[in-house]
């Protein structure tokens, strides 16, 4: 007998590892790392969203136009025809050539611009590099914003991750009702794009007889009121301020106990707001949220301090959601739904039940079969098999991997594969025993003969699993992970572990010499 049976020691250590680290998953205890259940098993909402990155470019162009307007007002530079052309360029003319240096200096401060000058007319577009960066930032910002909103909404463990260049995966486990789902979807999709816009008082009366094209000639756009689409406002296309300058938004109540939203601007925003209100007393300021006018109060005096309010026809819940959306910032571009999978909790529970029944009964059949066929060698193989399952669960729990329905199928399959290694070894040992080789030598040679086949077979399957992981999405990835872990674990248990057990039992087997009892052959 060997003095130190390292195989058995490693096997026992791996049993302890497997059992200890899979306990939290089996008992669903509060502490310890658990395997998390996929949305198909626990119910929830999975969405793939596409960010319309072109909109981010438009909105960046819009903010550049706003900056140009503010600067030229501030410095008293006379400009004309400031407008946005085909959504990706700003055009304006400077009336006095002497002002060119001033304008050039201002434009220098805005980075990433391609500027072309023709006579008096300036055309500003984003440089190619800046455009790519703007789109990229937009996606990251959408991820950040959605994450913030969902956090504040109080959902358990939302996942928001970027996928590829323009897509975002949102996973919300634990959404129980259709109402919750709808609220979450609304919160995610709300652009929350707050704009403060000047009403064009000169032509305000003509708004009902004006077409969009006519309005555009004056640099104006026509917007509807939020509570009544028949009420229309003619406002200046270039906003005075946008939501990026909002630092806080809270729900409050006005004198008649209607919910309103108080917002606070950052210092730059506060300065612009103060200047504008100071110069335009008596005129109207439209508060526009997502392209609808909420209110258009008269400016009574200069508003310093940088706070304002949105009122008009909210319910308390709506006001709360709008405040969350404003606080977490506007979506720099709107998102579209590319893929949605929602699984109700009852379906998830049914799936768990059905697949557990399948798993347990499948295992039982294999266990019984192995014992009948191989007798004690079958029992040894079964010990390896059970350990294998514990190790899969333990490793998945450690890495926080998700167990999905195909993942469970992967475990079932691994059981088949793990048994296979033991069957190959068992058959090899039997073969050698039939040839009359002594028991210790039959075991040693049986393992070494089987090893090459098992390795080749496992490595090829592992390679396929790696490809599956690389190209798969969601559930397929889960399947690939379980198979990979299962194969590696089975090398440890079914090859190393059982070998260790045989080594430990060798004196007993050699003394017994009952081949039927130990290996199932007559």
């Amino acid at each position, binding site marked *: 007998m060997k003095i130190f049976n390292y195989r058995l020691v490693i096997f026992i250590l791996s049993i302890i590892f497997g059992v200890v680290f899979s306990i939290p998953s089996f008992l669903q205890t509060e502490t310890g790392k658990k395997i998390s259940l996929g949305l198909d098993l626990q119910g929830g909402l999975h969405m793939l969203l596409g960010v319309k990155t072109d909109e981010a470019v438009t909105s960046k162009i819009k903010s550049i136009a706003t900056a140009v307007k503010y600067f030229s007002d501030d410095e008293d530079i006379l400009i004309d025809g400031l407008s946005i052309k085909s959504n990706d360029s700003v055009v304006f003319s400077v009336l006095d050539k002497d002002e060119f240096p001033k304008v050039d200096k201002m434009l220098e401060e805005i980075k990433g611009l391609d500027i072309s000058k023709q006579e008096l007319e300036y055309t500003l577009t984003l440089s190619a590099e800046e455009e790519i960066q703007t789109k990229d930032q937009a996606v990251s910002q959408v991820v950040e914003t959605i994450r913030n909103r969902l956090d504040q909404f109080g959902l358990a463990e939302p996942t928001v991750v970027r996928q590829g260049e323009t897509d975002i995966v949102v996973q919300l486990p634990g959404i129980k009702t259709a109402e919750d789902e709808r609220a979450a979807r609304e919160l995610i999709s709300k652009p929350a794009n707050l704009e403060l816009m000047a009403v064009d008082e000169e032509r305000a009366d003509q708004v009902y007889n004006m077409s969009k094209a006519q309005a555009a000639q004056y640099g104006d756009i026509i917007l509807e009121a939020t509570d009544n689409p028949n009420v229309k406002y003619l406002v200046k296309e270039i906003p005075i301020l946008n939501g990026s300058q909002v630092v806080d938004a809270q729900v409050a109540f006005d004198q008649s106990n209607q919910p309103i939203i108080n917002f606070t601007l950052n210092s730059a925003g506060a300065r612009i707001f103060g200047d504008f209100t100071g110069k335009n007393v008596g005129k109207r300021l439209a508060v526009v949220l997502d392209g609808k006018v909420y209110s258009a109060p008269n400016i009574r005096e200069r508003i310093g301090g940088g706070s304002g309010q949105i009122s008009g026809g909210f319910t308390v819940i709506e006001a709360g959601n709008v405040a969350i959306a404003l606080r977490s910032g506007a979506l720099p571009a709107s998102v579209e739904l590319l893929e949605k999978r929602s699984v109700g909790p009852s379906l998830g529970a049914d799936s768990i039940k059905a697949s557990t029944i399948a798993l347990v009964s499948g295992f039982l059949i294999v266990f019984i079969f192995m014992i009948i066929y191989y007798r004690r060698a079958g029992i040894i193989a079964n010990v390896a098999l059970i350990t294998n399952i514990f190790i899969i669960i333990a490793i998945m729990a450690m890495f926080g991997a998700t167990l999905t329905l195909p993942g469970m199928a992967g475990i079932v399959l691994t059981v088949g594969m793990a048994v296979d290694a033991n069957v190959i070894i068992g058959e090899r040992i039997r073969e050698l025993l039939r040839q009359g080789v002594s028991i210790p030598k039959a075991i040693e040679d049986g393992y070494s003969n089987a090893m090459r086949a098992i390795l080749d*077979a496992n490595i090829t399957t592992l390679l396929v699993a790696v490809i599956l992981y690389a190209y798969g999405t969601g559930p397929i990835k889960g399947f690939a992970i379980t198979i990979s872990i299962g194969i590696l674990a089975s090398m440890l248990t079914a090859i190393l572990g059982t070998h260790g057990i045989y080594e430990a039992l060798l004196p007993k087997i050699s003394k017994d010499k009952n081949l039927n009892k130990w290996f199932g052959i007559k």
Partner: protein
Amino acid sequence: MEIFKGNRIYNFMGKRIPFLGFSAILVIASIVLLFTKGLNLGIDFAGGTLVQVQYEQKAPIDKIREVLSNTKYKGSSITEFGSPTEVVIRVTGVSSNLTNDIGDEMHKLLDSTGKFEIRRVDMVGAKVGGELREKGIMALSLSLIIILIYVSYRFEWRFAIASILALAHDIIIALGAISLFQVEVNLDILAAILTILGYSLNDTIIVFDRIREGIQTSKESELNEVVNESVSRTLSRTTLTSLTTFFVVATLYLFGGEIINGFAFTLLVGVVVGTYSSIFIAASFLVQLKFSIESFRAKEAEKVKRQKEKEKIRAMYEKGTV
């Protein structure tokens, strides 16, 4: 307990032509099915929306159809799903609007049809479906290439070609069965196909490993004989493993519920076909490809010789006698 008596050698290669013929018929039939009947692409690949609804009583399919016929969903297909209380409504259109959800709309529309619960809403946009299809084909072809490289490296190129042919055989027949029974092809079916690939490869490689070993150890120089011996020797392992896997997959099929049914069905077919091919077909390709024992032995001997020479040089170097 033993299934096959240990020392019996079966003459598989003697009957390889009839088996190859039988396989050819199956493969051709499958290809014909694929081209005529085609695959029933599910929403994962084709795009579309699926709503799974469970009623408290028997699902009133006719009533649902009637209600939906007056709406924009009139073209949707309504089928029973697993049990009489549950139905699946498939709609070809896709709503990319986040706030306007098909689940909500269905809830309102079906309100009059009885008490029900919407258990699942899956919506896959056309762009995503196309991407998934592309990735699926990519994964499948990449797997085949990697297997080709690995087996060529570990064995010999003819082994690689033979194993790929055997795999193609298994996958085509499995796809044929999927087409015949119009199983809905979704991501999980793709996973099943790739599993068959892994499983059948596993089987084939174990047989090939035995052939490789047989060539190296036995004095037999007739390839047919070596193959017969190797396949016979692995026979009890092959059937045993297939049986245990078959049991597990069969329980999955019987008790796994409707959702995993297509997956389990595909695997069942795959296990049966994979076992058949690794016993009767894979090695036949090796014989058909005119694999030569002599040159393989010569190459192996060359390898061993080179290895020995390297060791010798190393030994000399370490002793400092170079």
